[in-house]
């Protein structure tokens, strides 16, 4: 077992990405993810990888598009306003079936917002953000170790499905320190070479072309339907979630990322007070873990969503629950992180109203 070391979330994700085979990084500084780009700037030249600070997020995402066209493992990291700027490029990358990894260390919004932790980019990540019929695979870690392991998963998923993967973290996870164990660098043979489609100069083969468009609507529909076949496979195979104390739960919390983690302490307070609470923590936000939530709704009295937003994921929770039990919501916005006690108080109010 490798020795544990103490790392900030942003640094840990950066180092893990490199160990997961990220060869090229393009990005633009923005708080609260700047440690990530700074880490890449320092570390990548040391190990013979390529780092470039772009002139904007718009340029960065298109550099990602270019690098992804060559079948090279490539990523960027940004925070909310920066990810908004990348949306056009993300749509192109999805439309062109290119593998790439994005990290959005979410901060308070809308607009310039602030630099405190938030989860108010859930809609943007899971419901589009950019234009057109496309899906991102969206993952969200709750601990730094999970974030580290997720980087490997993210690159593998991007390559396997030729689809961009988005990791939604938040300012708290980015700034937090926690002991982590870093997996070894993966060996090059574990990275698919994409010889069959990548742009590398045609040599003696036929030319390869990569586009995200077809002006013939019949053909574009075919293209989109083919993408949706891939999305369906992703939904069947790549749902990830954690259940915590759900066996005897009467209340199921649903929360992801940092909020999911905070709720574990709330649940301890609730159980001490005699409320049997448990947690379903979506790890993949898309595909959304609809099934375990639907099944939980058959046996609990209430499914309560908690978010660092005014309520975005809660819409997916309510779709899954389909009105079987009450689905209250508690959230704070603008960069306020709900505390364990505060959520416990909210739970008590909802619970007392119910029983």
């Amino acid at each position: 077992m490798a020795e544990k070391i103490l790392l900030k979330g942003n640094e840990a994700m950066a180092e893990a990405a490199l160990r997961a085979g990220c060869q090229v990084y393009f990005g633009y500084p923005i708080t609260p993810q700047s440690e990530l780009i700074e880490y890449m700037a320092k570390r990548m030249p040391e190990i013979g990888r390529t780092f470039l600070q772009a002139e904007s997020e718009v340029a960065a995402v298109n550099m990602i598009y270019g690098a992804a066209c060559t079948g090279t493992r490539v990523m960027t990291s940004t925070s909310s306003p920066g990810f908004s700027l990348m949306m056009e490029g993300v749509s192109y990358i999805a439309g062109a079936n290119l593998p790439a990894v994005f990290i959005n260390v979410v901060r308070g919004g809308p607009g310039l917002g602030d630099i405190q932790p938030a989860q108010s980019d859930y809609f943007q990540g899971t419901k589009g953000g950019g234009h057109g019929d496309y899906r991102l695979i969206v993952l969200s870690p709750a601990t730094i170790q999970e974030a580290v392991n997720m980087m490997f998963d993210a690159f593998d998923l991007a390559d396997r499905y030729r689809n961009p993967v988005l990791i939604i973290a938040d300012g708290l996870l980015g700034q937090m320190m926690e002991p982590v164990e870093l997996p070894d660098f993966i060996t090059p043979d574990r990275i698919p070479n994409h010889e069959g489609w990548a742009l590398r100069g045609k040599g003696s083969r036929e030319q390869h072309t990569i586009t995200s468009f077809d002006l013939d609507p019949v053909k574009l529909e075919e293209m989109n339907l083919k993408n949706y076949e891939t999305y369906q496979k992703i939904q069947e195979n790549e749902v990830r979630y954690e259940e915590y104390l759900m066996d005897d739960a009467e209340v199921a919390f649903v929360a992801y990322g940092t909020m999911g983690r905070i709720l574990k302490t709330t649940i301890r307070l609730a159980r001490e007070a005699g409320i049997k609470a448990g947690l379903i923590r979506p790890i993949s936000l898309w595909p959304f873990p609809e099934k375990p939530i639907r099944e939980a709704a058959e046996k609990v009295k209430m499914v309560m969503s908690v978010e660092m937003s005014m309520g975005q994921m809660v819409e997916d929770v309510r779709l899954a629950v389909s009105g079987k039990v009450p689905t209250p919501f508690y959230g704070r916005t603008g960069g306020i992180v709900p505390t364990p006690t505060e959520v416990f108080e909210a739970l008590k109010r909802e619970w007392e109203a119910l029983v």
Partner: protein
Amino acid sequence: MKGIVAFKRPDALTSKEFTYCPGCLHGVAHRLVAEILDEMKLTDQTIMVAPVGCSVFAYEFFDVDGTVAPHGRATAVATGIKRSLPDRVVFTYQGDGDLAAIGTAETIHTANRGEKITTIFINNAIYGMTGGQMAPTSLVGMKTTTSPYGRKADSEGYPIHVCELLQNLNGVAYLERVTLLTPRDIITAKKAIKKAFTAQVRGLGYSLVEIVSTCPTNWGLSPVESLEWAKQKMLPEFPLKVFIDKVGDVK
């Protein structure tokens, strides 16, 4: 008796027929680039980035690996490709709206970084594909569908001079403005394109060839009239010139 090949399609072009309007000079520009790729034996190792605009399908005409960038972002996409595969030849092919309006930031910063790529810049002072709207290079007084009363300097500003802007950036290795109005112009343009790719192959920095071109369809002129109009109106505004040459003599 054995025939001799006097004229043939360059290997760097596919057999697909050009879909450009009658009299459009894209075909000439494509052919010149393809001839240079063949002559320099670069075709097999070249990756091209087509823009959004009339030449959005350029990747279908060039028989090289290729993609289409979002509008204005061709040099950023090319940067991503080149940084991933530094030993390949990468070029962008862009129009005036793409390169000098929506993509201005990418153009300037790619040039300033001295990105080892080549840009072929077609300046015909109008948006072709979307139907004749005003371009950043449209001439003062020029009527377009979005400047129906003629471009007015006091509200829409003056035509932007891309080469004159870029010539102050240290990252640029080759920069020339040419045109394709006469056979002599075409010979000059071909030499410029060769120098631009030579700059890239030698790793000297960014290279750009601006081609002052025409748009008979959206200018509302016949192909022959277009050539004359370009000569009378465009060339005084966009004088032909070698702005930067760090390549030197090329055989």
